[in-house]
């Protein structure tokens, strides 16, 4: 499992606090490092702040205090325009897909290629079909997001996030709402991206079994902090009562 992981930290969160506009503190002192090529699963109760954590890493939210470093760049105080260089190297898979309503599945995946590359229409077609194939969405490319099921939307979202060949991919529940076979296929896609391109993945998931199987390390978010962050094996033998309850009861509730 250790192959393709280097010791370079591509994501470094230091004492990150985040409060929503109404003043509620969602994250209260998160420390997290992710190495290049690593697959890191983040688990935690619903509402614990996992999506918030991913958005902080993607620079979509700004921490109230603390610092966020991505790919060696401290992005904490960067302007939107300065952030764009880093963002081109990160793919984000949103929890509900966040596909562009007015574009078909094909155009959604082609969107980043059209915006940021000089590829010809033929090259774009080829690349988009390759990506749609990888997520099992070939044949639905002409459909609008409104005509897709939740799971299909999510898979198109994955294809779009991978289009520019990012070094880091942040997945927000990539397999929730998918049937077990499709979920397995997405999990192997994630592993494959690492094997082939050394992609670093941070995966928010409620699927504790996939998390154990897939991840090099798991981080457990609880009460606004990372409660434990360790290899799956170490987590299994961790005696903290919350950890035990979480991995045994399986999923959502505390």
């Amino acid at each position, binding site marked *: 499992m250790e192959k393709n992981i280097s010791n370079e930290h591509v994501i470094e969160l230091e004492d990150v606090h985040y409060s929503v506009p*109404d*003043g*509620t*503190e969602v994250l209260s002192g998160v420390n997290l490092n992710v190495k290049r090529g690593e697959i890191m699963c983040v688990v935690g109760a619903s509402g614990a702040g996992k999506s918030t954590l991913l*958005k902080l890493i*993607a620079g*979509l939210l700004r921490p109230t205090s603390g610092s966020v470093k991505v790919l060696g760049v401290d992005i904490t105080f960067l302007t*939107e*325009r300065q*952030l*764009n*260089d880093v*963002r*081109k190297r*990160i*793919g*984000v898979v*949103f*929890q*509900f897909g*966040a*596909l*562009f*309503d007015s574009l078909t599945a094909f155009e959604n995946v082609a*969107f*980043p290629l059209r*915006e*940021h590359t000089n590829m010809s229409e033929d090259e774009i077609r080829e690349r988009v079909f390759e990506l749609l194939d990888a997520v099992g969405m070939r044949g639905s490319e002409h459909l609008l997001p409104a005509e897709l099921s939740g799971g299909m939307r999510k898979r198109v979202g994955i294809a*779009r996030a991978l289009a520019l060949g990012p070094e880091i991919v942040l997945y927000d529940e990539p397999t929730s709402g998918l049937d077990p076979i499709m979920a397995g296929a997405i999990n192997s896609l994630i592993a494959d991206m690492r094997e082939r391109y050394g992609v670093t993945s941070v995966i928010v998931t409620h699927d504790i079994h996939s998390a154990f199987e897939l991840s090099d390390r798991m981080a457990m978010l609880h*009460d*606004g902090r990372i409660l434990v962050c360790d290899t799956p094996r170490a987590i299994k033998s961790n005696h903290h009562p919350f950890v035990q309850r979480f991995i045994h009861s399986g999923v959502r509730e505390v």
Partner: protein
Amino acid sequence: MARRREVLNNRSSAEGQSERTARQPQWVGEFIIVPIVYLGEVALLLAETVRAMFSERLRLRQLVEQMDEVGVRSLLIVLLTVSSAGVVLSLYTAKELATRGAGHFVGWLLAYTIARELGPMVTAIVVAARVGAAFAAEIGTMKVTEQIDALRSLAVDPVAYLVVPRMLACIIMMPALTMLADVSGTLSGMLIASTVGVHPNIFLDSIRSFLTVTDLAVGLIKSVPFGILIAIVSCHQGLETTGGAMGVGRATTNAVVLSLILVYVADVIMSSVLPK
């Protein structure tokens, strides 16, 4: 966790309240500070849009789409509204003037009123209602379904991608719509006037001899700031949307109401500043 959140909430809202009541009466906030902050935000978005317009490549496809939405799809209702205004205006004035021997003023009176005020204003009101609502609803929906975040995560500036084409479409299409509205409003007025004894030749002669290019130009010039206001105010409402479907509804209503208010204010200012 839940309890802590509640405590935090209470504390922050209590603090906010006491600060406000200690320093200033309530109305200062509501009627002075809120509008100033709002206008500041709109001005910032306008500045950002102008910057993006010149520093980023133009999305031609988006621009054409929006020109279709703002121009082509609004044309019929704009023409209908202005024509009905022209008809009514003519009904009220043509017979009255004709019977008093001032029939040769009817054409000028109508054309002047429509060119300077009714044309640009009615066009702006119709576009604010139709297009402003559409801008706010579409962008607002994108905001609450994280599509705006998706744009940002793909290193695409939402202002350059969404606001610039909409504002340009309004800048280009508003004078065009106003021009056509002027023509159709005046012609329908002429039609009505001819039924009460003002012959079309007299009507047109009257326009030719009294209406100046300035009258036409003032109306067309006014329509450009109207378009900018409608686009920026509505896109701003869309981008600031929070709170799901209900939030989108609120943003849409606010976009129309605020666009209209600002259009009225701009109309008064411009009408008093521009050459008479």
